[in-house]
């Protein structure tokens, strides 16, 4: 015996092992993911090339990835792309963070105090089943087609999932943690910031990831209607002028930004929730 490394001696190791065998080495996992992405691009290229060669239908409907990339480069070189990206990201950033602050700020006390819960929950439960998109025209009627309606709409749409995960997280927490803190002298405000918030944080962060995904979902649609900038505008503009590469390019960018937003929260999770798997 040279080392104990072959033994599953610690709990974290056992958990990592799980039921499906050992986890892959990070380099191997990365290689597999890279292969998957390249494979997808290859398939896309193959199909669009086949369309051109076999004259299946007008190739303008399904440009290859290189054409889409070319369209984006052209827009970037002409200097138009940055304004659209900035517009969308700014709306998402403001709308989402406002939604997150409201959802967590209202969600924590709602989850903790029964009285507030009974006051707030019926209203939320009545509004929640309404698809947020059904409210978009109302937003436009109320606050016009400016920035406020777009940002406000993201806030409205993202509030619900983030609020519900926060309330649920507080409901799930061990009530003895509160007692322990009270016996150590915690005042109500200290209870919220030092006990309830950190105890709820794992689920709250999951809620934030849902919220980010939803932000990109709804911003596109509000940018279809009465916007002069933004990636959603680019898509709609592409439709009017039959610029399929531009439409696909903007969609790809939206996908990439959504992915990046998710990765950002995951990064925060790894830092903030280190205590779960130290």
């Amino acid at each position, binding site marked *: 015996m040279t080392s104990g490394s072959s033994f599953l001696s610690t*709990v974290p190791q056992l958990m990592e092992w799980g039921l499906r065998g050992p986890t892959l080495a990070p380099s191997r996992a990365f290689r597999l993911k890279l292969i998957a992405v390249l494979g997808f691009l290859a398939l896309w290229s193959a199909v669009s090339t086949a369309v051109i060669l076999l004259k299946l239908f007008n190739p303008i409907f399904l440009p290859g990835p290189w054409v889409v990339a070319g369209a984006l480069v052209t827009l970037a070189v002409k200097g138009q792309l940055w304004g659209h990206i900035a517009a969308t990201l700014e709306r998402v950033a403001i709308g989402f963070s406002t939604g997150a602050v409201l959802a967590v700020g209202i969600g924590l006390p709602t989850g903790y105090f029964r009285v507030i819960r009974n006051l707030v929950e019926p209203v939320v439960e009545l509004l929640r089943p309404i698809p947020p998109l059904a409210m978009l025209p109302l937003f436009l009627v109320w606050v016009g087609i400016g920035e406020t309606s777009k940002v406000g709409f993201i806030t409205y749409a993202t509030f619900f999932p983030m609020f519900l995960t926060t309330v649920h997280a507080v409901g799930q927490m*061990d009530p*003895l*943690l509160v*007692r*322990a*803190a*009270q*016996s*150590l*002298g*915690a*005042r109500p405000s*200290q209870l919220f910031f*030092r*006990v309830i918030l*950190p*105890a709820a*944080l794992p689920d709250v962060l999951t809620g934030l990831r849902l919220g980010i995904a939803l932000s990109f979902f709804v911003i596109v649609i509000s940018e279809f209607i009465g916007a002069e900038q933004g990636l959603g505008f680019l898509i709609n503009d592409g439709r009017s002028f039959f610029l399929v590469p531009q439409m696909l390019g903007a969609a790809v960018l939206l996908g990439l930004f959504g992915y990046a937003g998710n990765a950002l929260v995951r990064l925060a999770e790894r830092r903030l*929730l*280190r*205590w*779960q*798997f*130290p």
Partner: protein
Amino acid sequence: MMAKIQIAGVSKAFGNGVPALAGIDLDVAARELVCLLGPSGCGKSTLLNIVAGFLAPTTGRVLVDGTPVTGPGADRGVVFQEYVLFPWLTVAGNVEFGPTLTGVPTEERRRTAARYLEMVGLRAHAEKFPVQLSGGMKQRVAIARALANSPSIILMDEPFGALDAQTREILQDELSKIQRVEHKTIIFVTHSIREAVYLGDRVVVMTSAPGCIKQVFDIKLPDVRDRFAPDFTQYEAEITRLVKEEVAKVHE
């Protein structure tokens, strides 16, 4: 001299109307360690929760230094059976939690935490998180956390109940040692007769349904106790007989 903790006419009935506690009168002197002993369901934990301020009594009241208890407070540290450490804080972070709330300067806080972690033998584990600790280690942290907040009273609710027999005896030894240095006023809930005789200055035997005090034993044994000494086993036997009567009554 006024008792440190005065429990006067305390009874408790829960929502279903079944009384859990009836007419408890008990005075605990400063620096005394009182063990509440009884079969499960005798309301000993309920009584502890009332003293802690987590539950309000249905009748009667609890006074600490002559002031009625109205809720939990930093003057009464609590050690739970389930440890209840803050999982997102390190061992040191948990121990410093109380002092942090009152704004004790970082330097002093660190010193206090180090001192109590040393006392429970966990100095080397200060930077670990609770998930990395065994049950015995977690309970040591919980004890250090309570002590570091310097309460005059510590309430312990079957603190060693979830531990294996060996760890349990080791922690009893440690608590006994700590008490000889710290001289806290301690109410210690247990259903282990040996544990009660080993730790208690007095052992309060409770009856069940509704819980009342059946008998109070003054344990006149030296501070450092020997679990195999004849007078130790004599107390054990005497209390066992009494508890058996109670358990038999429940089954009748």
